[in-house]
């Protein structure tokens, strides 16, 4: 930057500080001479450095100053002096000394030790001053001289004395003094010799626009290349952004959105999906059970489900078990409820939902007790396994995954069953997302009245969106760190 350009870009603060940079050596010195605030000088110096006008070197020095007790002692005298004064005329006991001087017992004891070492007293039941002691009373002790010299830089002080006095409570203290040394560059020297006009426009005002005065003056030039403080817009939560994106994909493929309650009977969450009542998934460790019971649906559906369980799994189905209230463990419960409400004329039809599910798990990076699942069903007499894989592949392609893999799996309510893996470039590995399949006739028949192919899937959305946001820990979804929320990129 030329000197001329430099002059035109000077901020008013820089103009105020400029006269001092060739004369002064430090920020504190400029501050003292310019009557500017420390922060103002500091900012101006920083800008100067950015422009190559000067170099800044941090200079932190330690300063020793009088502490809280030190101040008091300076006016009243050090405890040992007060001690001596008290017995100058008359021998006294320690208690009497303490009373007369107002010194604490501890202060008296420290003084006693000190004075004994100096041979200034004779110790007994009552304490007597010596000639040496009287001598001491007349002169200033080295400790007093030391205290009077403060504040002073640490290096300049007697080290032993400093060490001794630091041991005494709040007599003296060390503070760190921060300063910045400046060293002016060749450019800076030229600049400080230049004629500095302050005839620049700092801020454009409505008056200037009205009266045209801006035409007579130059605008001060900004450094448009430097960083400015960051600001952020209000934002949707990144998980919801991803949910909305996934939702758009299902809508674009002609799906209708289904919704329903979080609290369900075991009947809807398990029984309607042909999960036997003694299935391990129904045991305490996986499922949140709520106090109280839920109602069962119509007798027609209950009887049909009961019959299917008793024929298929060969056990006595218990309505009490089905009535237990649970937090839904999968959105597949919505699929079951939706199918149960369908009529012949509604078919074929496709549904999706993206909703929260609940599992009674201990929290860690890959397990949450609440998580989002993307659920879908296609109820169509002509649907088949190839279509199931087709819908899933299409969805994941649209979510940004080119490689989708399908493996055999097991779920009590689907046959055939599929495990969905996607290839995550960032991890260079396959990530397991969740299940899909065709609902078993044992699920569909009791709910719909007849067996029609129902393609179904429900996979965790969390793992699908982790790589996009560069998150490694699923718990971040619920962390609500406002900085992270502000700075998170949008789903594009």
């Amino acid at each position, binding site marked *: 930057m030329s000197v001329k350009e430099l002059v035109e870009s000077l901020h008013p603060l820089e103009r105020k500080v400029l006269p001092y940079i060739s004369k002064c050596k430090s920020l504190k010195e400029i501050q003292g001479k310019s009557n500017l605030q420390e922060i103002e000088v500091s900012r101006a110096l920083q800008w100067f450095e950015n422009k190559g006008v000067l170099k800044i070197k941090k200079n932190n020095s330690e300063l020793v100053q009088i502490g809280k007790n030190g101040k008091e002692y300076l006016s009243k005298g050090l405890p040992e002096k007060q001690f001596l004064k008290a017995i100058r005329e008359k021998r006294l006991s320690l208690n009497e000394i303490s009373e007369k001087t107002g010194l604490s017992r501890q202060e008296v004891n420290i003084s006693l030790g000190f004075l004994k070492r100096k041979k200034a007293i004779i110790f007994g039941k009552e304490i007597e001053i010596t000639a040496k002691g009287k001598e001491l009373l007349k002169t200033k002790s080295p400790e007093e001289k030391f205290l009077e010299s403060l504040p002073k830089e640490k290096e300049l002080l007697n080290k032993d004395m400093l060490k001794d006095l630091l041991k005494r409570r709040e007599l003296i203290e060390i503070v760190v003094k921060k300063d910045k040394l400046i060293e002016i560059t060749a450019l800076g020297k030229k600049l400080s010799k230049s004629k500095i006009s302050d005839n620049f426009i700092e801020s454009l005002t409505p008056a200037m626009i009205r009266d045209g005065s801006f035409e007579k003056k130059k605008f001060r030039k900004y450094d448009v290349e430097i960083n400015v403080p960051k600001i952020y817009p209000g934002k949707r939560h990144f998980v919801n952004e991803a949910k909305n994106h996934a939702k758009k994909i299902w809508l674009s493929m002609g799906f209708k959105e289904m919704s329903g309650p979080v609290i369900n009977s075991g009947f809807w969450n398990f029984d309607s999906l042909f999960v036997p009542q003694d299935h391990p998934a129904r045991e305490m460790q996986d499922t949140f059970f709520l106090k109280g019971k839920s109602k069962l649906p119509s007798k027609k559906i209950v009887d049909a489900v009961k019959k299917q369980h008793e024929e*298929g799994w060969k056990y006595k189905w218990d309505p009490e078990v089905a009535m237990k209230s649970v937090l839904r463990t999968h959105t597949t419960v919505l699929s079951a409820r939706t199918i149960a409400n369908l009529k012949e004329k509604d078919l074929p039809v496709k549904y999706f939902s993206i909703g929260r599910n609940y599992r009674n798990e201990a929290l860690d990076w890959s397990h949450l007790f609440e998580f989002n699942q993307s659920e879908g069903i296609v109820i169509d007499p002509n649907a088949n396994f190839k279509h199931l894989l087709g819908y899933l592949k299409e969805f994941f392609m649209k979510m940004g995954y080119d490689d989708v893999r399908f493996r055999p799996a097991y779920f009590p309510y689907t046959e055939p069953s599929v495990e969905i893996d996607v290839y995550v470039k960032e991890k260079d590995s396959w990530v397991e997302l969740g299940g899909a399949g065709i609902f078993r006739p044992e699920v569909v028949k009791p709910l719909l009245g007849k067996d029609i192919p129902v393609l179904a899937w429900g996979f965790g959305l969390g793992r699908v969106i982790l790589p996009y946001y560069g998150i490694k820990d699923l718990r971040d979804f619920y962390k609500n760190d406002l900085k992270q929320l502000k700075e998170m990129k949008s789903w594009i």
Partner: protein
Amino acid sequence: MPTITLDKKDILNMLGKKVSDAELRDRISMIGTDLESMDDKEIVVEVFPDRPDMLTAAGFAKALSSFMGIKTGLDHYKVNKGSFKVKVDKGVKKVRPHAVCAVVKNVKLNELIIQYLMQVQEKLHKTFGRDRRKLSIGVYDLDKIEFPLTYGVKSRNFKFIPLEMKKEMSVNEILENHPKGTDFAHLLKDFKDVPVWLDKNEKVLSMPPIINSEDTKVSVESKNLFIDVTGLDLKACEQALNILVTGFSERGADIYSVDVGGKSYPNLEPKKVKIDIDYVNKVLGLSLKEVKSYLEKMGYGYEKGIVKIPCYRTDVISQIDLVEDIAIAYGYENFDASISDFGGVAEENKFEEFRNKVCNILTGFGFLETNTYNLAKKDDQTKNMGISLKLVEIENALNEEYNVMRSWMIPCLLDVLRSNKHYEVPQKIFEAGNVFLPSEKVRLGLLLTNASASYTEARQILDSLFNSLGLVGKYKSVVHDSFISGRVARVSVNGKDIAYVGEINPKVLKNFSLENPVVGFELNLSELFEIS
């Protein structure tokens, strides 16, 4: 789901063919088990609950060999007629009614096979046996026992030497002190007498489903074995027995029948199910001309539309289960994944659409949307808010901190502010989330905090939101202990009470360790949707 560890050399031996690691990995994943890890020595796989037959190393190797086309089709297992008899006492009927048995001779045991035997028992007990409740297995050295045996009951004072112990213990002592006894004592807690297996000389074999006796223990020297499965479900007991004996048979042992109260076990004859090739093609979207080759790859037999199902398969309930196996044999990777012709009419849930709109409006005010748990901290919902409420409680929360369902949003948002105290103010947040009253509703909570936050600011946003939705709110002074008295309003729209807006009570702020004033509102979005 159960995970088993297999000896790689042993598996490759049984496959009888050299297979590369890559192929092994791929085939194990595509047969319907989940490969956890594989190195030079071990293969660790997760076996799905529908295939307990793959929990034995022999069963696993057999399924894989068939799937890889090395040795396909149905295996026939010969059951030699044995002269072993078991008497079943009436006493077991209430306690553990069913028992099935088999004798296996000429087994070649070594450390590995014994390890496998323990593994398969443990895994079958855990999953298929529902933690020994539904069924449990006992394996004994045949040469240490004398027939006929009795499956009966004994009192709780009855004594024998349990496995891994040196001296006799009574049943009660075992149930109270032995590690296996304490683990499974609950299965017998309702019964006065306990089930036991005894031989001709009253020698104890075991006390199912708890523990075997030390006297009849299997060791590497054992040549012949006696196996029993007892439980509550006869069919499951038979299946578990079949899985074990066919496993031994695959390794060259001879199987002998046992007469249990007049019935002969094991029964290793295949079950027969009809299959319709058109149905298979319709479900899978294929046009297969035959299904025989695919079924044989999965270990089935096939003849003229009839499928013979091996005796160890527990999962084939109907034709659809065979369709899945045909799909696996065909190879999931070989399906041409394609969307159906049926287009359908898309339809967004109207409420969800509304919720999205409201949230987008609030971001326009510079607010950040948060995402908090529906499970909540009880004290935050009530005590810390200066109010008492009846909450939906969770019976069995693993994480004790979160043991109720939230009934309002503001406490969750205050919790967010609490965890963000180290950042600068102003902080402006909102969330539309489920609440449980116990009826489920969606409520919108909004909070803003800064050193001078006031009622007016919160009220302006609420007014403006109503305005965007074409609604007008009416405000009425009200008392609510979570807010500052005289600075909280009940808000109604079209005559319906729908929100609170105000300045949060400083006592509440203290409870949440907050240092700056907080203002905000709680709005019933579900009801607002009904009105608008």
